[in-house]
């Protein structure tokens, strides 16, 4: 070694006391407090499900098997599966064709159509169902349920397929053309194959939505699984059959969820690097009019009918006189329940989301899977499970706000975990390391760095949960405190009595209430 610079003391005159030599766990392992909290969240999410299973077997194995193999179960399953298959198929066609027309062709006004084709997603199935049945009372049974559910859930296919087509490389189509393939061969051989993963993932979301749907099938009096469970729960004192049916529905939903997660994993939109090219739009030529008619009818049925119906019945209702105090009380009750629901859901989701974002591993995976149980649990079964828990374990809060809020948290935990996880993952771990090297412990680092950085994303997650809680029907119906009626409950009871004009103001209030966080979310997500 050669000459060195003259040593000079480090800047600053005060020298902090020497650190105590402490033993510490290896870095890369999660802090114990976080793991414990996340495990508690996971248990929170699966507890109702476990209790439901226990309750189903409570009447003995013989009873369980007799309900399971009974003709009623088979009948319900056949109806549910039939409806699910039909709606999913219809949504695949509507969503894919719509997305293709809007993204890759020279369809006039395709930007506007693109927005209009997403909007039905904001409409709860029971609001759409209420309007359809009010307009066309004869439209009950399979046809009605099929129509309503297709109209509200096809955006689940439209959105991912449109995104795949936009993000995908238009250059691929040009390449295929240059290799001598005609337009039709390109469409079927390249384009459709390219979007298939996205479409199938969307289709499975539709299937899950239809299988779990309670509002539309009840209004259309189509005796599907969810309605069967609810009827059985309301009709008899022996709730074992309801519990058994609930378990079967959970298994069906779990199968679809599993398939969906597999499909999502495969949904690779683009391979290779380099800039994605936007291809030249496909000229529709003489197909332009039929194409316009196609998107026009889709938008008219899915958006125009509900809008027209809401206006018509609200006008009818206001001429009959709106019960303003009642409407105000229902709005307040909805706000209270949804806000508390969003709060609890986020609190329960935080440890799981953080663990998942920062510390992978087998245990984290297990906790995450458990916490995602709500994703596969139809609202009816969550409501049913919590009714059992409430009656047996926590009678003090049965039919009180806390139990309803717990129900929301179990159901919508996956939404919140997704948001927290993304938000925390977006805060670079490097930044946390810098905070540590500047003398902050793990807890101080979390409070001063990670949380503030993740706050906008977490807030967006909370808004999403709020929105979903406000719209939720079956859980609210089964768990809401007697006398405290939310907008959804009020709307439901009026519709049930055939008082469509009286129900309409509640539906409008609900749509408006849901619109506020939606608009805010849209702004946050676009930033």
């Amino acid at each position, binding site marked *: *070694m*050669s*000459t*060195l*610079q*003259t*040593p*000079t*003391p*480090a*800047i*600053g005159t*005060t*020298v*902090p006391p*020497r*650190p*105590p*030599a*402490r*033993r*510490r766990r*290896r*870095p*890369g392992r999660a802090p114990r407090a976080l793991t414990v909290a996340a495990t508690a969240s996971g248990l929170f999410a699966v507890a109702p499900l476990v209790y439901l299973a226990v309750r189903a077997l409570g009447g003995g194995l013989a009873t369980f098997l007799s309900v399971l193999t009974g003709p009623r179960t088979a009948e319900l399953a056949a109806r549910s599966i039939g409806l699910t298959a039909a709606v999913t198929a219809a949504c695949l066609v509507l969503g894919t064709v719509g997305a293709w027309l809007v993204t890759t062709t020279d369809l006039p006004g395709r930007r506007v159509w693109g927005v209009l084709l997403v909007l039905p997603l904001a409409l709860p199935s029971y609001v759409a169902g209420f309007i359809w049945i009010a307009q066309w009372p004869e439209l009950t049974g399979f046809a009605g349920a099929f129509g309503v559910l297709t109209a509200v859930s096809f955006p689940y296919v439209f959105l991912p397929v449109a995104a795949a087509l936009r993000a995908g490389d238009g250059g691929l189509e040009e390449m295929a053309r240059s290799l001598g393939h005609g337009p039709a061969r390109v469409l079927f051989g390249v384009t459709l194959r390219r979007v298939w993963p996205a479409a199938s993932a969307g289709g499975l979301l539709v299937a899950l939505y239809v299988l779990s749907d309670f509002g539309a099938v009840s209004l259309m009096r189509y005796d599907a699984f969810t309605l069967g469970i609810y009827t059985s729960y309301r009709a008899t004192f022996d709730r074992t059959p309801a519990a058994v049916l609930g378990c079967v529905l959970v298994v069906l939903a779990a199968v679809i969820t599993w398939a969906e997660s597999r499909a999502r994993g495969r949904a690779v939109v683009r391979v290779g690097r380099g800039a994605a090219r936007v291809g030249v739009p496909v000229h529709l030529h003489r197909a332009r009019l039929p194409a316009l008619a196609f998107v026009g009818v889709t938008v008219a049925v899915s958006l125009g009918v509900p809008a027209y119906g809401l206006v018509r019945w609200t006008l009818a209702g206001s001429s009959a006189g709106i019960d303003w105090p009642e409407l105000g009380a229902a709005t307040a009750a909805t706000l209270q329940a949804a806000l508390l629901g969003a709060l609890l859901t986020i609190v329960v989701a935080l440890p799981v989301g953080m663990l998942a974002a920062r510390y992978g591993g087998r245990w984290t995976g297990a906790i995450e899977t458990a916490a995602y149980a709500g994703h596969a649990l139809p609202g009816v079964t969550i409501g049913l499970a919590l009714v059992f828990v409430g009656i047996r374990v926590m009678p003090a809060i049965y039919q009180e706000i806390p139990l309803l809020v717990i129900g929301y948290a179990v159901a919508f935990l996956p939404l919140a975990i997704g948001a927290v996880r993304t938000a925390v993952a977006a805060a*670079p771990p*490097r*930044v946390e*390391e*810098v*905070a*540590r*090297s*500047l*003398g*902050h*412990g793990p807890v101080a680092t979390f409070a*001063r*760095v990670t949380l*503030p*950085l993740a*706050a906008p994303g977490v807030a967006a997650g909370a808004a999403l949960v709020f929105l979903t809680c406000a719209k939720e029907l079956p859980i609210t119906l089964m768990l809401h405190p007697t006398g405290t009626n939310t907008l959804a409950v009020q709307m439901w009871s009026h519709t049930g009595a055939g008082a469509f004009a009286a129900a309409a103001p509640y539906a409008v209030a609900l749509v408006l209430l849901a619109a506020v966080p939606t608009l805010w979310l849209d702004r946050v997500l676009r930033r």
Partner: protein
Amino acid sequence: MTPALVVHRVRAGYPGAAVLHDVDLVVPTGVLVAVLGSSGCGKTTLLRAIAGFHPLDAGSISVNGVPVAGDAVDVPPEHRRVGLVPQEGALFGHLDVAANVGFGLRRGERRGPRVAEMLDLVGLAGYGRRMPAELSGGQQQRVALARALAPAPALVLLDEPFTALDTGLRAEVREQVLTALRTAGATAVLVTHDQQEALGAADLVAVLRHGRMVQVGAPREIYREPADLGIGTFVGDAVVLPATARDGWAETALGPIAVDGPEGYGLILLRPEQLRLGADGFVGATVLESVFHGHDATVFLRLDDAARKAAGDVVRCRTTEPGSPAAGERVRVAVEGRGRMYAGDPAVVPTALSPTAQPRTDRHGVDE
């Protein structure tokens, strides 16, 4: 005086893949050490181990004489007094510049004169109220340095702090950062894969190769007397020729050259700037290509037949002469200064080290 940092026989890595093998490093107080290595050589792991983010499998680390890692000791990062300047600054995006700089200070000092002093040090006085997103990449990097220096750490670690910057900006920011470090009298470890950066900026250069510390020395020493040929070709452009050394002189295709190192058969390492083109050289050569760099030029030569047999095809040299020769021109080559001998069989010169290296436009092509 106790060194600011002592890394002693440190072994670290991942299950099934050791990254650092018995690494030693001593950094005296007030010294700037550059850890130079190609990507994947373990330099970032070393830095993370010093900062307390990567566990040791063996060995020990002490900062200012205090053991912080190894032998049943593992001081958490927040108690090590080791500042960190990561690659892209990693400023806290939700805090303004002043709050970023004051982050590591005690509560009472966060809005005190120390913050202004640090901002002044890095040439950003008056920027306290800006948000990180409003700063250029170079300014962000300087704020990151001010933030790391503010709590008066025993040691500052800089992890490739200039790599993410544009080439034009890089030299300027590097100069500002180095000035600030020297003004503060800070002890610093700079990790880099850039030879020029290491040689030009540091008091000491530590060359890390495949997780082993292969040479530590002053920049000149590393460049002129590399411990082996690999280091020699890594830290700068090289001309490597077969040679036979005896009594301080080596016989080569370019004539007799004064050398240091072992006697006998081996390879001699010369730097391209030692080759002189003129009328009175020892061997004749034809210019194949001349790459103009502005301040100088790299000239690729094909030696005449007799020499070619021994030396291989192409020899490169760097010339500062105003009129560098054009392709096709005939020149004669002479060697200035001393060469460095390395023992070994001249017949097995690895191609990467051979003097036939093709024209490279990217100086750092070796390490990427």
